[in-house]
């Protein structure tokens, strides 16, 4: 049953993505990306990734949609040039996709318990994090403790991005400076 939901949600995601990219009206395209994010959040929940689903629902369907709409309000709402299919990009994309599909033939089947990803570090986290860290949510223990360096880096990236946006757009910066 959950495999069926998985297939349907993935197909819906693909359809929404196509619709979002071929739409001329950027407002509609942004709304469709919001729907796309919500669908992917649902899909994450089906595949047991509750934490990820949470974040994607708040970020994808909420904040990033609002930021894109803000950008459209400051720029323009419609895509100008007619989006005729381009031969060279289409060729590149098809070749790359075909090679990648060929590559997947050697990948472990979906939800294979013997896949390499399940045999290396993850069993240690699942078996030992209860004693070593003592909190039930394994995702939190890995995020904050086992891979604390990683998360420190991610937090710094957000800090840096925030500084970057402030430098580009500015809170309380002079508008005259922009003319140069």
């Amino acid at each position, binding site marked *: 049953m959950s495999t069926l939901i998985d297939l349907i949600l993935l197909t819906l995601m693909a359809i929404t993505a196509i619709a979002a990219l071929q739409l001329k009206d950027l407002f509609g395209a942004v709304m469709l990306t919001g729907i796309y994010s919500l669908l992917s959040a649902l899909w994450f929940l089906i595949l047991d990734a*509750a*934490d990820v689903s*949470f*974040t994607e629902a*708040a*970020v994808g369907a*909420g*904040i990033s949609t*609002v*930021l894109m709409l*803000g*950008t459209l*309000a*400051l720029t323009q709402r419609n895509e100008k040039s007619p989006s005729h299919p381009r031969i060279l990009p289409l060729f590149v994309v098809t070749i790359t996709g075909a090679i990648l599909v060929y590559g997947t033939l050697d990948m472990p089947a979906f939800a294979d318990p013997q896949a390499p990803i399940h045999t290396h570090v993850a069993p240690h986290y699942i078996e030992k994090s209860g*004693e*070593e*860290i*003592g*909190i*039930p*949510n394994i*995702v*939190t*223990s890995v*995020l*904050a*403790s086992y891979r*604390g*360096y990683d*998360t*420190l880096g991610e*937090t*710094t990236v*957000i*800090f840096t*991005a*925030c500084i970057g*946006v*402030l430098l580009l*757009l*500015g*809170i*309380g*910066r*002079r*508008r*005259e400076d922009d003319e140069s």
Partner: protein
Amino acid sequence: MKHHSILRIITKLLIPLILLFALYVQFHGDFGPGGGFQAGVIFAAGLILYALVFGLDTASEVIKEWVLMILVPLGVLIYAGVGVASLILGGNFLDYNVLAHDPVHGQHLGILLVELGVGVTVAAGLTTIFFAFAGRGRRNPEGALITKAANPTQEPQR
């Protein structure tokens, strides 16, 4: 947004719940799904909803920009500070075992503080980014927000 009574009232009802839920996700993240990243984005979403419905002028009175400017680096400093504290107490960087009298308690404390740092940075950072986008083109030369009364030719707020 002056006339959308339903939106305004529903938003007033929803915002405390969203913020409370964000705090729940923050501090219950050890036991259920949740943690600093999730709580931060939910908190920021609540503040952004407030700014969208009641306008940027009202929102920037509630959430002062200088407070956000302090909170964004503060979160990173809390995180790195926990690492330095564990160095001083004789462990490795970000090794929480030494923070308390026994390793498991130390881990609890460390994770709580670290998640708090992440939550503060994410919430303040995303709110700042939204304010930067929303305030663009609506400022006078001194950098203060242009209110509608002061500048009637300005576009109505969205």
